[in-house]
């Protein structure tokens, strides 16, 4: 911004010989412009990082409502169904029983179902879990760290993470009965092959 860093042209009588190159002030100014552009560009790249629908799942560690620690890195070799929900959200209510059933059917076969609450009050979350008899572990997400790393924009959103820690499927919104059938088929395949 500072246009006055440049040495003052004091001689009014004679036009100075055109100097080659830029003065220090000009270089600083250009550097400043580049910095602004770079920061905006970084933010743009950051914002554009879309929801991970394939490739390595962002790792995280959370403490569930039961007080247990869940570390995604430690789950290598196991399939993880990561479900973001909130007690305030209608579609979450609709899909909750289906996810509970999934947990009941697959827990013994080594499939993790983990709920992470999105923008929810702890008391409300616990009441919600109670109401729907949810027995799969759920964890609060203070400061939305998990939600941010998965670029969550609302609830519910669900990620299927395979034995190698890669995201293999993603459901935006409610998991309908039809979608749940597809997910179960997918998990069956993964269990058979992995």
């Amino acid at each position, binding site marked *: 911004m*500072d246009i006055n860093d440049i040495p003052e042209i004091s001689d*009014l009588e004679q036009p100075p010989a055109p100097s080659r190159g830029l003065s220090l002030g000009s270089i600083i100014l250009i550097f400043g412009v580049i910095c602004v552009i770079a920061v905006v560009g970084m933010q743009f790249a950051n914002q554009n990082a879309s929801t991970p629908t394939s490739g390595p799942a962002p790792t995280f560690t959370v403490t569930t409502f039961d007080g247990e620690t869940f570390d995604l890195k430690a789950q290598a070799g196991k399939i993880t169904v990561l479900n973001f929900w909130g007690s*305030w959200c209608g579609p979450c209510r609709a899909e909750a029983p289906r996810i509970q059933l999934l947990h009941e059917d697959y827990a013994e076969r080594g499939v993790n179902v983990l709920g992470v609450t999105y923008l929810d*009050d702890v008391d409300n979350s616990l009441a919600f879990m109670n109401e729907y008899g949810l027995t799969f572990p759920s964890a609060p997400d*203070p400061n939305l760290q998990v939600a941010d790393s998965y670029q969550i924009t609302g609830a519910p959103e669900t990620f299927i993470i395979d034995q190698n820690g890669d995201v293999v499927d993603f459901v935006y919104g409610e998991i309908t009965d039809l979608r749940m059938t597809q997910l179960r088929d997918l998990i069956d395949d993964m269990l058979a092959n992995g």
Partner: protein
Amino acid sequence: MKFNIPSLNPSPLHREGLDSASLKMMVGILVVLMSIFLFALPLSAQESTPEAQPTRAVTSDDVNEVASGMFCPICENEPLDTCRANTCVIWRGEIRDMLEQGFSEQQVVDNFIGRFGQRVVDVPQDDGLRLLTFIGPIVLGLLALIVGIITFSRWRGGDVPPRVTTTSANLDAGNDDYRSQLESDLRE
């Protein structure tokens, strides 16, 4: 071309008196304005001290008062008091509950920040972020002020004795009397 026509060139003494008076005035104006700018920020930043209040009847206006300084992360840039999304309605309900339990406004806000981070308020409450928020415009404002002052001094420094050209001579002559200046403008 470059004569300094005496009648158009104000006497040095006159000029000197003129400028020191006006210089003082300018500096005065600048100091006053910038102190308004600088001090208005930290002072007004210290509002709403938290104090415990007894359980009370909470009106929607009380809730909205607190909510007006907050955002819900679902609908960014829409203040919580006017947002109609489901989450906002629930959050306003939570604010009402807390106020009824005797939370102060500040405690309510702190509670939300504790759970969801600084994004829920429309000016960060965290000291470091607050500093970042307000130091930016102050530093840049000061920078702009310095630029302005340097520009003045450079303008003045490079102009002794003043080189009066035809156009500025006309204008300078016009300055002697408002009427003639006006007329000269009208003639343009």
